[in-house]
C-alpha cells in the first residue's frame, strides 16, 4: 500500500475537541456534492470563469478527489470582453493543475450568427446560447456552477441539483424536492443538471474561506489604479468593448472588483483593499450586495435574474 504522507495525523472533532465550524461544514458539504456528481454522472464539467466563486469550487474539487486529479474538465464561457488578468489566471491555473479547458466563445456565436450583439453592449446575456451549445456539443450531463443562494432572490430558490430541460430551461415550479443529502441527478437524454456546491455560502464565507485556505486570486480583486468612467452609478473599465461613449469621461481611480464578468456590465468599486484581510473588512462593512454594487444587468427589472435563468442562464 502506498504511503501518502508522513505528517503527524491531527485529531479533529473527536470527543473533547471542537466540532466542525461553519466553514468546515460548508467545505464538507461542497466536497460531498462534488463526489456525488462524479459518482452519478457520465460527463460532468466545472464552469470556470477565473472569478472567486469558481476558484473556490475548483479548490473544493481538488480536495474532493485528492490524491487523484480532478476527474472532469473545466469550461469557460468567454464573452470576448474579458479582463486580461483573469484570462492569464485561467490559463496559468489550467496548466498548473493539468486540467482540460473547454472554451465556449460568445464572439464565435456572434460571428456565425447564433446570437446578435445587443445595442447596450452587454454580452452577459449572450452567454446563454454558447453555453447551451457547448453543453450539447460535448454532451455534458452535469455542469457545476458557482452560484450562491445569497446572491439574488431568484437564486435563493435554486436547488443544489437543478434539472434543466433540453432547452436549458429552469422551471421553478417543477423543481425536485431535495431531501436530506440524497441528491437526485436522474435525467433524460438531452437534459442536464446544474450543480451548485456553494449554494449555502455567502460572499463573506467565500472570502473567509479564501483567507483560511490561502487561495490565490486574480489581481483585479485587489486595489489597483485603473482608467474608468461612470455609467449607471458604477465604474466601468474603458476598453475596446465599447466604452466610454462621447459624453462619458474617463478618470484614473483606485478601484477593485467584487465580481468578475463581462467588462461591459461588471463595475469596479472604489477601494484601498490590498489583500484578502482588507477585502474581508471591506465586504463585512459594505452596505451593498455584490450584485447590487457591480452588476448592471440585474437591475433591469425586478425579475431580471429569474427571467434569464428560465432561458438557461446560470
Amino acid at each position, binding site marked *: 500500500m502506498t504511503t501518502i504522507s508522513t505528517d503527524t495525523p491531527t485529531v479533529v472533532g473527536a470527543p473533547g475537541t471542537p466540532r466542525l465550524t461553519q466553514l468546515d461544514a460548508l467545505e464538507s458539504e461542497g466536497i*460531498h456534492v462534488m463526489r456525488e456528481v462524479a459518482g452519478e454522472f457520465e460527463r460532468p464539467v466545472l464552469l470556470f470563469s477565473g472569478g472567486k466563486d469558481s476558484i473556490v469550487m475548483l479548490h473544493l474539487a481538488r480536495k474532493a478527489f485528492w490524491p487523484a486529479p480532478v476527474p472532469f474538465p473545466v469550461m469557460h464561457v468567454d464573452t470576448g470582453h474579458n479582463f486580461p488578468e483573469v484570462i492569464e489566471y485561467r490559463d496559468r491555473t489550467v496548466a498548473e493543475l493539468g486540467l482540460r479547458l473547454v472554451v465556449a466563445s460568445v464572439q464565435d456565436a456572434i460571428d456565425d450568427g447564433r446570437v446578435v450583439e445587443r445595442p447596450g453592449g452587454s454580452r452577459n446575456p449572450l452567454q446563454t446560447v454558447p453555453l447551451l451549445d457547448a453543453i450539447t456539443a460535448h454532451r455534458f450531463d452535469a455542469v457545476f456552477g458557482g452560484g450562491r*443562494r445569497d446572491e439574488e432572490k431568484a437564486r435563493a*430558490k435554486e436547488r443544489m441539483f437543478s434539472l434543466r430541460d433540453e432547452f436549458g430551461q429552469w422551471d421553478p415550479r417543477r423543481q425536485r424536492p431535495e431531501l436530506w443529502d440524497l441528491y437526485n441527478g436522474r435525467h433524460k437524454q438531452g437534459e442536464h443538471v446544474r450543480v451548485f456546491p456553494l449554494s449555502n455560502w455567502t460572499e463573506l464565507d467565500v472570502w473567509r474561506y479564501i483567507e483560511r485556505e490561502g487561495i490565490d486570486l486574480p489581481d483585479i480583486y485587489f486595489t489597483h489604479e485603473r482608467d474608468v468612467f461612470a455609467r449607471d452609478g458604477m465604474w466601468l473599465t474603458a476598453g475596446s468593448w465599447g466604452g466610454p461613449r462621447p459624453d462619458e469621461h474617463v478618470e484614473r481611480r483606485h478601484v477593485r472588483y467584487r465580481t468578475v464578468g463581462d467588462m461591459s456590465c461588471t463595475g469596479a468599486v472604489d477601494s484601498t483593499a490590498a489583500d484578502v484581510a482588507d477585502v474581508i473588512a471591506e465586504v463585512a462593512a459594505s452596505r451593498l450586495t455584490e450584485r447590487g454594487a457591480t452588476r448592471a444587468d440585474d437591475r433591469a427589472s425586478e425579475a431580471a435574474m*429569474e427571467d434569464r435563468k428560465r432561458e438557461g442562464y446560470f
Partner: protein
Amino acid sequence: MGTHAPAGLAQPAPSDVTAVVDLDDHTQRDLLRLATAGSVDDGKSTLIGRLLYDTKSVLADQLSAVERATAARGGGGAGVDLALLTDGLRAEREQGITIDVAYRYFSTARRAFVLADTPGHVQYTRNMVTGASTAELAIVLVDARKGVLEQTRRHAALTALLGVPNVVLAVNKMDLVGFDEATFRSIAREFADYAHVLGLPAVHAVPLSALDGDNVVDRSVRAPWYDGPTLLELLESVPVARDASTEPLRLPVQYVIRPRTPEHPDYRGYAGKVASGVVRVGDELRVLPSGRTSRVVALDTFDGPLEAADAPRSVTVRLADDLDVARGDVLVPAAEHVATGQDLVGTVCWLTERRSVPGARVLVRVGTRTVRGLLREVDARLDVDTLTVEQWDPVDTLHTIDATDTSTEAAPRSLGLNAIGRARLRLAEPVVLDDYATHRRTGGFLVVDPADGSTLAAGLIGPTLLDRLAPVRANERDDDWLAGAGI
C-alpha cells in the same frame, strides 16, 4: 451611507445581540439549519424579513429594491413590506404567496444560520418536507387571531415525522390581539397537547409581532408578562448536533479514489461523508451489504491525515485489506449488528401529482445506493388533521391491480400529492435498513420514477408516527379521503 429604518417600522431597540459582522469570532461559529412552517397569510415571510432586518442582514440595495417594490404596489403608507425581501419569484410576488422553498442566510456572533423558508400553502407541503429534512430546528408559525389551524397541525405532524429535534412555536400578530396573555397561553397549550400526541420534543412558545419586531430579535415591552427568550435567543442557544461520539458510525461510500498516477500507482481510498458517529484509524469496520470486515489504516484528506473524523466531515478511508468496496456500500462498526434486507417498510410522503400505483416499478435511493424496486402496496394513510391512521386490509396488490391503469377508480389505495402513508417495497438488492427514528441521517430514502427520474416520494425506514397512532378501519370513515383538502 448609513441605513435607516423603513418608514413605519419601529426603530430596533438597542440589543445585546451582535449582528452579522464579527471578524474575530467567526472561526468559532457553528452552523444551525432551520426551517419555517405556517399557514398562508400568517406572516411567515414578514417574520423572516424581520429576522434578516433586525440581525442587520439586509443590505441597502436590497432594502431600497423592496422600498421601490412596496411603492409600486401602492403601499408605503404602512411602511416597507418586509415580506418582499423573501418572495423572490415573479408568480410569488404577483400572488402574494410563497411557492417554493428558498434558503436565507443570516448570522450573529454566536452562530450562522441557513434558513429554509418553506411555503405555507397546502399545495406546496412537499417543500415543507424538503426544508424539514435537514433542519435541526423548526419554527411553526401561528396567527394569534386564528390559533392552531389545520395547516399548523399538518406542519407539526411533518416536523415530528421528519424527526426535527427542536421546535419553536411562534405566536405571531400579538399586536392584533393587544398582546393578550390569555390568548397566547391558550394557543400554546393547544399546540403543546397536539405536540405531545405527536411525540415532539419540548416546544418553546414565543409571543411576537413580526410586523413590529416584538420578541423576534429585540425584547418586547408590550408583553411584560412574558419573561422567556426572544426568538433569536432561542435560535442561538439550541444545541446544533447531538454528541457524534455516542452515535453509531455510518459512512456511505460515495466514490472510489484510484489515482493510478506515478506518485500513487496503487492507492485505493473510499470517499464519503461521515453520516453519523465517528470513524477512527484502527477501527474494525464492516462493509455492507457484503458483510466483509477490515481495519481502517488511514483517514486521508487534502490537508493531511486525520486520526479521527466525525459527522458531517468528508473524508477518504483506506482499509487494511483489499476488499471489493464500491459506491453504494456503507461502512459500519464491525461489532454492531446492522439490519440489511430487500424488503423495505416505511412511511412515505408522496411528492408528485401522479398518484402512487401499486405494483409500480421504481428506483429506490438509500444513502449512496440506488436499486430497482417494486412498490408492492400502500397499506395505511395518515390523516394529519385528526392524527388517525386509516389501515387497509393486506391484499397482494401485485396480482389484483392493473398497474397500467392510473385512474382513481383503479387505484383505491394509493397516495396523491402531499399524502402520507405506509408503503411496502421489494428491492432487487439488499440495502442497509436503518430505522429513521434513531438514524435520521441514513434512515431516509427516495422513491424515483425510472422513466423520467422525478422524485415520487420521500420515505422514512421503519415504524414511525403512523405506527404509534391508533389505527382506524377504512370502512369506519364515511368521508371520501380522495377528495380531501389539497390531496
